[in-house]
């Protein structure tokens, strides 16, 4: 991990309230891996005080990008930065997705959580692996994501406001693909409710390997404040253990976080 002053190349709205930020950051670019995040300092004022953790949306040619939704003061301030300005960022942070040796790779994104899966999709594409992208959203607000994905990637989406007979949940999309006994890696990023449903659907079958990215409020982002605690169960240990989303995560095997819920 390192601290870098990254020049803003693009900071534009790609859908209502959703921004695409691309930064020139050769040091972080060369070290980053899908599923990791950066920690952005918004400037010199004290309010908001902390850096903003954001997962890496893509990384190419000395650039890294993030996708963010304006939800509060921090993201609102970020949306006002112009190209040419620089941002003090730390990264890459955390443990990202581990690309498994499986015959199929399913990427399951819920809303804004889909961001790191775009980077993963490109990585799988570079490695010529067979991948499918499943996008779950409330309305059609994240459909623009398709433009950022490899053009020949198999892509499905669900909308909670769909008319009857159309897929409303990401699990509606996923279910028909799970009948095959093929060994499959699932990479998930979205709300925890979605992870529980996906886990139930896969029913603990061991030809599925599921990884989930866990979202927590963070302080330092580097493992010292212990604010972003995640309770995990790591067999053969009997007792659950408390680990840090920012260092041991944010990506965990599904079973470590949700094993008790099967």
């Amino acid at each position: 991990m390192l601290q870098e002053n990254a020049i803003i190349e693009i900071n534009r709205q790609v859908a209502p309230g959703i921004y695409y930020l691309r930064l020139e950051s050769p040091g972080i670019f060369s070290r980053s891996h899908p599923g990791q995040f950066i920690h952005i300092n918004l400037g010199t004022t004290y309010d908001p005080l902390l850096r903003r953790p954001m997962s890496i949306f893509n990384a190419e040619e000395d650039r890294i990008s993030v996708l963010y939704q304006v939800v509060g003061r921090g993201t609102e301030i970020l949306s006002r930065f112009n190209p040419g300005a620089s941002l003090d960022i730390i990264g890459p942070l955390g443990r990202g997705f581990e690309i498994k040796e499986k015959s199929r790779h399913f990427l399951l994104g819920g809303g804004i959580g889909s961001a790191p899966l775009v980077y993963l999709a490109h990585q799988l594409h570079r490695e010529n692996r067979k991948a499918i992208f499943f996008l779950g959203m409330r309305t059609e607000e994240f459909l623009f994501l398709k433009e950022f994905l490899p053009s020949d990637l198999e892509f499905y989406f669900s909308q909670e406001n769909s008319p009857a007979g159309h897929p409303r949940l990401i699990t509606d999309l996923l279910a028909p693909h799970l009948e095959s006994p093929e060994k499959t890696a699932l990479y998930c990023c979205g709300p925890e409710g979605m992870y529980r449903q996906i886990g139930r659907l896969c029913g603990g079958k061991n030809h599925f390997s599921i990884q989930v990215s866990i979202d927590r409020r963070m302080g330092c982002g580097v493992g010292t404040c212990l604010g972003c605690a995640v309770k995990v169960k790591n067999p053969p240990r009997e007792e659950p253990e408390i680990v840090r989303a920012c260092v041991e995560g944010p990506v965990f095997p599904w079973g470590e976080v949700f094993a008790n819920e099967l």
Partner: protein
Amino acid sequence: MNSKLKTKIGSLQLNNPLLTASGTYGNGKEFSSFLDLHSWGGLVTKGLTLDSRTGNSGIRIVETPAGILNSIGLQNPGIEYFLREEIPFLEKLEIPVIANIAGRRIRDYEELARRLDPVPAVSALEVNVSCPNVREGGLAFGTNPALIYEITSRLRVITDKPLIIKLTPNVTDVGAIALQAEKAGADAVSLINTLLGMEIDIEQKKPLLGNVVGGLSGPAVRPVALRMIYQVYRQISIPIIGMGGITRGEDAVAFILAGARAVALGTVNFVNPRAPLEIREYILKYMERHNFSSLNSMVGLAHQEREA
């Protein structure tokens, strides 16, 4: 290394007055990719307890105006693990390491002091009697002058290492508490620990932190910390380690002028890992501008009688 910045906390020699605030810096490793840890005057460890603690559940950290509220709950792997796994890294550092200890009962503190006393890599003990995030012990000790006297004098018998008592701001008269620490043989006091606070999620209509209340830190608490250091300086003669929202060089200078012989940086590390370098640079420039030849000559200068 500029010798102008040297300072002393009891028998503890520091190359500069900047310490890490316990619980904000792990045991240093995590930050070593951002700066040379030897830039610090000393390193204060994450709070240590006898047995491992998993900390509090639910949300543990909340950002507030110019500050953060935390309710970590002293999560740490326990003394056994610390001695086995952390000491090998810490003993390679050429700056003093101060072990921060916390307990539920006085005999927990005694046992911790007994275990740490023979460890050469530990130069001093900071006694956390002010954690707002644990149910027993912690704050209960820190708000009671008689208990402060008791705990300090018992630890004094166990170790000759410098003893630093970390005080809570959550009391009416912090000076009275500091005085008891001094009387019982403490080498220094450090203040302030975090201020008790809370936040409510108005949509869910319930407290945001899993532990309901937490400790407030960051620039928001700085004037309170500064006032307390100023106040305590008038009542005791042992050194004060000042902390509470120090973010810039100007803040550190103010704390020293108020009476702090060393200062600790906490929350700022989360935002600006290079803060100690910038603050050290600022102090040197300030000393040059005001013709100070030693840090010691600055300490407590804000107490000079004002001209009529």
